[in-house]
């Protein structure tokens, strides 16, 4: 991991998304961690509505590759985001073994396609490091904090920013995220 962790000097630019997402990083909280290959992401447990297996989606025309389409969740139409693709990597080759985490941010419901759910962790506020500015503005807005762990690091996902679609025509700066994903 070649992240410049020293950048968490207070003077270093805006701390994007840090504490801005309600219930995400600002306070101590519990997070569900999920994996994409070796990388671990944290999702605020308060936002998680349900965890279910992958099912086929109905494609949405002209949607970016990370928008996998919509599913019927007990009568409600819910869009499914491919978290891997959202962070600029290739689309997930989804199978029945893949997991969809249904989250709610504000009034919006969405599902996040991930490889697996791994753990539930408690995070104290002082453990959360700001996300360093790496290159362009976009992907780090999708994260709202980094939490160092014994083995590696958990990146906390900013659900509000994640769900600001379809207007979320954020440039996909793959480099920055790939850097996260050592």
């Amino acid at each position, binding site marked *: 991991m070649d992240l410049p962790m020293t950048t968490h000097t207070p003077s270093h630019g805006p701390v994007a998304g840090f504490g801005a997402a309600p219930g995400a990083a600002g306070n101590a909280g519990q997070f569900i961690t999920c994996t994409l290959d070796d990388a671990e992401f944290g999702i605020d447990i308060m936002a998680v509505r349900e965890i279910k297996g992958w099912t*086929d*989606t*109905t*494609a*949405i*025309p*002209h949607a970016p590759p990370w928008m996998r*389409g*919509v*599913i*019927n969740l007990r*009568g*409600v*139409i*819910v*869009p499914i985001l491919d978290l891997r693709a959202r962070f600029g990597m290739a689309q997930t080759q989804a199978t029945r073994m893949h997991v969809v985490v249904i989250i709610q941010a504000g*009034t*919006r*419901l*969405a599902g996040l396609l991930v490889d697996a759910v791994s753990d539930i962790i408690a995070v104290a506020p002082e453990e959360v490091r700001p996300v360093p500015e790496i290159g362009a503005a976009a992907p780090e807005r999708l994260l709202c904090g980094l939490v160092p762990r014994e083995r590696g690091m958990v990146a906390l996902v900013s659900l509000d920013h994640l769900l600001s*679609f*379809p*207007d979320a025509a954020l440039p996909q700066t793959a480099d920055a995220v790939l850097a996260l994903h050592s």
Partner: protein
Amino acid sequence: MSFDHLRATYFEESAELLDSAYAALAELAEGRADAETVHALFRAIHSIKGGGGAFGFERLVRLAHAMETLLDLLRDGALAMDAGRHALLLRGADALADLLAAEKAGTGAPPGGEDALMQALHAAAETAATAPPAAAAGWRLRFTPRPALFRNANEPLLLVRALRRLGPVQVTADLSRLPPLERLEPEDAHLGWVFELQADVPRAQVEEVFEFVADDCMLAIEPLAGETPGAPAAEPVLGSEAASATIAPPAIADAAGPTTGAPQSVRVDVAKIDRLVNLVGELVINQAMLLQLGGTLPPALCPGLIAGLETLSQHLRELQEGVMAIRTQPVKSVFARMPRLVRDLSAQLGKEVRLVVTGEATEIDKTVVEQLADPLTHLLRNALDHGIEAPEQRVAAGKPRQGTVHLSAEQRGGRILIELTDDGRGIDRARVLARARERGLVAAEAELTDSEVDELIFQPGFSTAAAISDISGRGVGMDVVRRSIQALGGRITVDSRLGSGSRFVLSLPLTLAVLDGLVVAVGREAYIVPIAAIAESLRPRREDIHAVVGRGEVLAIRGAYVPLLPLHRHFAVPDAQPDPARGIVVIVETDHAGRMGLLVDDLVGQQQVVVKSLEANYGPIDGIGGATILGDGRVALILDIAGLGPAATTRPMPTAPHRAAPLQPALQ
């Protein structure tokens, strides 16, 4: 229920009551009134007053009270309705509307605005003081309870007591219906009574005593012999039911809930209805899933299953229709606002205009009704501002001084047609065209048909008013009207004759919650095409498909060329049938681009679908109007025909006013 909620309910209810007051006033003006009309008007004003008092709207209460006093005299026949009194009441209703609006906005109306009106109302009521007394010196009541009277815990003794509060009462019991003891049902009512009430009170006050038992008894009220009752010939002896003069159910008492004549509205939280609509929609989907599953079983395994499921599906359809019907509402509530608009506007513009309204009872989805007010207001303003000429101009043109605007509604199939016709100057196509050329909306050399020219008025930013008036404004014009109608799943068309007037036709869906759709397959996706937009569907012959350089393909159909829109290409769906001659073309009508052929792989079937929101969790998608859930639980997207195809064509293609045609051969 919070205080704010209560207030909101009051304003909502008052708006409805005002609408019914205006409707009653219109009936009176047009000579369509019956005995119930004045009662309905009284109840409406009374209810507005009642609630207003609870919120401390004093001016409103005073005004409503003054109107009530006059109405009371009219109701009892002490005064007759004439043009002057009618005009006063109309002004009163207008003033009430203004006061309500001011209270709602929290601004407060300009002080003293209704003073003159109040004086006029008082003066009008006073003329009756010299008239003969309104009420009879007494009433004879023949009260015969039905056996079931006691089941609702009504008690004749209490009724006698209540009558006594009005004046001395002489009571005679009628034992004729008392059965022999062995056949006596102890819990039934068997006695009848004749009451003679010596009191100079209005009939309504007597009727009110029997408010709750009206359905459980026969009641005849007549003035005591030899005296002239307040309400003469109009209301003779109120007698048996058969004589259609059974006591009118609660007169004033049930003020907000008129039981006859006036529209009876259901006051249920729309959210509750929507929940019901959604649940029924879910049931329909579940049932479809079960039916599909059932089809996979060998019939011998469970013989009655399929038949049972089919009966279920039939009942569900009826249930769904019934639930949908709850959401509908007469267009009256929005039509009723128009007379005032016409009055105000014609005064402002110095024009003479008569508004004729028909079909107010036509019902349409509540949401549609609510969102119809703005576009209709706009169309009406437009008709008065640009359509109807000034009186002198009309006379010079050999027309009557007074212009006529006709607003009508009718149901035709699954749609509601609303028409607004005026006998004004019509669309001046030469001017429209000149204007459009000047604005670059049309190429200088383009030849347009009449209907194409008429279509231009719906182009964004188009405005022909030579002088910009404050009535129709500038630029906020027909394009906005068209957009709001389209947002409701409707269409608007115009036809017009120079010198003799214009007719705007709005075609709207009955409900927004369900839609008749054609399920089409494209690759592994399914889409829903709204049946209302479909002209026909067919399997094209290869020789009828022609490529147009740079414009894609067109289909020759009965001598015309229809542009083809391959849905798989438009929506980037993989693994679809790329060869038009091996697919199916669904011809749809669009408002902005004429006919268009949607190329799909196959037709799956026709079904009623429950419209689900995509926007709630995702957002708007061009060309997609919503989503639904199919029998197998999958989501299918519903096409928004208006949003499909070559976006923002500068040159509108002709649109023939079109009615949803049934599907043609390809489906059979």
